[in-house]
Structures are given as structure tokens and as C-alpha cells.
């Protein structure tokens, strides 16, 4: 059986696609056969973050409508033989995304022996987001330390607990909170919600904290998932997150302000 994981948040721009790309790549590099699906019909972007935008031939909607089979549409990643990307449709009508269609694609991938299927949810709570979470076993809720993101995450938690297949069956989805764009310096100065505050408000188990890092933009600029960048704090934090997801106990890092030298402390920088 494949384990289906939705990466969701409600709010846009918090790092769902960045997280999906890093997460799927991390799982694949650890030897798991992984598929990552872009559910954002009309606003395809996962292909760009994964660096395979020029290799898109068929998409998710083509498969659902029977114009291509799943094997034709899956793009094999350049970095790992275990990783496959299913891009969203860029032009088609959103109504083409149906629950039966999504279920069939997930079943095909399961039959194909995938260990993990990562569903990159669009922002909002409309059809794409609802279907991305519907069949999930696990949910990674991506949250920024910022009021609107925390509020939207709580709304999404409500939907995960009521509108999904697991909820309909009286079971529950495993929820994992991933805080992204975290800045320990701004937390220390009282300008940013602390990790502990977000945990207290949302009451969801924490699976990782990704520090604010310039390397995330550099990675997306070049179409390389940031987890590949082993030098960067964000890349390392994503790797910790993947290991925790796989059941390892890994202490959280990058939660404290980096110590500055005397020179920097006196003159800024």
C-alpha cells in the first residue's frame, strides 16, 4: 500500500510546493519509490520547482480524462530513479478534476508499487485543495509564524477532521505541523510568533521547523529542490523533517539566534 500524504496550508505562498518538492526528493533519495502530484490545476508550478518544466508532455487532467495513461504522464526525476512528478494541467477547466478521477490515479500509483504519494495542494479550500486532502493518510500542514497563516491552518485542520475519506470512515488523518520561514532573531526580538506559541494554538504534533533562508529562493531559481543543498540551513532542516517523518528521532535545529561576533554586535550586520 502506498502512503498518501497531502501537503496543505490554506494560505498561499507559505511554502507548500517548496515543501512538496523537498519532501518527495528526500524520500526518494532515501530509497523510497515516490510520486509527487501537483493539484493546482491552472497554476502549475511544481514542475518549475523540481526543474522539469520543459519535460511536461501530459498532465494530471490528461490522465483523468483518459487521454494519456499514468506511465506516459509521470516525469522521471533527473536526480533519483525513485522519484516521479505528475504535473498539473495549465490550461484546462478545473471541473475536469473529479473525485473518481483522483481516486483512480491514486489507485494506479498504488498498484505500481509506489511507497509514497505526495499531494501538493493548491491554496484555498476549493475543489483542488479538497481533493488533494481527500484520500490522504497523513497531512503535513505548512504554517508561517504569522497570524493569517496560523488561522488558515486551523481552518484546514477542521476540514481534515471532517471532509476527508478517513473522517467519513470515523478514522483520522495523521497530522504533522511544519513551520516554515522561521526567524529565531525576530522571535527573540518579539516580532514573530514563537514555535511554542504556534504549537499551543494549533495543538498539532510538530514535525519540523524550516528557518528563513536565502537558499530557498536560490533553489527555486535553479529548479533544484532545496533539500539537495546540504550546505543550507533550510536544506538540512528539510532533511531532518523527512527523517522524522520516516520515524527517526531527530532533535530540532536552527531554533536559536546565531551567535554574532563582537564586531557584528557593535556595528550591526
Amino acid at each position, binding site marked *: 500500500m502506498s502512503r498518501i500524504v497531502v501537503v496543505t496550508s490554506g494560505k498561499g505562498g507559505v511554502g507548500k510546493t517548496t515543501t512538496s518538492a523537498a519532501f518527495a526528493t528526500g524520500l526518494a533519495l532515501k530509497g523510497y519509490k515516490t510520486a509527487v502530484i501537483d493539484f493546482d490545476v491552472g497554476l502549475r508550478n511544481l514542475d518549475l520547482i523540481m526543474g522539469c518544466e520543459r519535460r511536461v508532455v501530459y498532465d494530471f487532467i490528461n490522465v483523468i480524462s483518459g487521454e494519456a495513461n499514468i506511465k506516459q504522464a509521470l516525469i522521471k526525476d533527473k536526480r533519483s530513479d525513485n522519484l516521479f512528478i505528475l504535473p498539473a494541467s495549465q490550461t484546462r477547466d478545473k471541473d475536469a478534476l473529479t473525485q473518481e478521477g483522483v481516486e483512480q490515479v491514486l489507485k494506479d500509483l498504488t498498484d505500481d508499487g509506489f511507497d509514497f504519494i505526495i499531494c501538493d495542494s493548491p491554496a484555498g479550500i476549493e475543489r483542488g485543495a479538497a481533493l488533494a486532502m481527500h484520500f490522504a493518510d497523513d497531512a503535513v500542514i505548512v504554517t508561517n509564524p*504569522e*497570524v493569517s497563516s*496560523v*488561522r488558515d491552518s*486551523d*481552518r484546514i485542520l*477542521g476540514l481534515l477532521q*471532517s471532509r476527508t475519506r478517513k473522517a467519513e470512515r470515523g478514522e483520522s488523518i495523521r497530522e504533522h505541523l511544519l513551520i516554515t520561514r522561521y526567524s529565531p532573531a525576530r*522571535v527573540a*526580538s*518579539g*516580532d*514573530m*510568533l*514563537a514555535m511554542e*506559541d504556534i504549537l*499551543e*494554538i494549533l495543538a498539532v504534533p510538530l514535525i519540523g521547523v524550516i528557518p528563513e533562508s536565502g537558499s530557498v529562493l536560490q533553489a527555486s531559481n535553479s529548479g533544484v529542490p532545496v533539500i539537495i543543498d546540504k550546505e543550507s540551513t533550510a536544506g538540512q532542516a528539510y532533511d531532518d523533517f523527512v527523517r522524522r517523518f520516516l520515524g527517526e528521532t531527530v532533535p530540532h535545529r536552527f531554533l536559536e539566534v546565531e551567535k554574532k561576533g563582537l564586531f557584528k*554586535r*557593535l*556595528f*550591526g550586520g
Partner: protein
Amino acid sequence: MGIFDYFRTPKPNTAQVAKERLQILIAHERVDRSGPDFLPKLRNDIMEVIRKYVQIDEKDVNVQIGKMDDYDVLELNVTLPERIPHSGRTPS
């Protein structure tokens, strides 16, 4: 932070403000979510009735379902403005 920053007046801790606002808001939204579907509508109807007599704000009406052992209780809490205009005669 440079050396001159130490002489500035300390900034307010806005993160604390954010946390308190979120705690209140999310508690409210969770109640709306967990309650029966008619709760928001009931709240509006109650507010309309009260407004026939006293001007109140939306935030002054709090409707929720409280859980007791084996039954639910409809909790209705209305905060009236400090002084309600009297129409009757004041005692001399």
C-alpha cells in the same frame, strides 16, 4: 543590531499581541465549526431581536453549545451597553 539601537525605546512585543488575538479568534471559530450548522443563523436571529430594543454589536452576542454529561446546553451570553435608556418614570 548596532550600538545605537541600545538607546532606542523598546518596541512593543507584537508577537504576544498576535498570540492573544489568535487564541481568541481560533477559539471562536472552533466553536462555530463544532456546533450544529444552525448556530451562526440562530446567533443572527437572536441579535436581530435584541436590536429591536437595544443597539448591540456583533461581538456582544455569544452563542455556543456547552457539553454536559449526557446532554448539550445552549449558552447565550449577551453583553448590553453600559446604560440602557429608561423609558419609564424615574422614582422621585
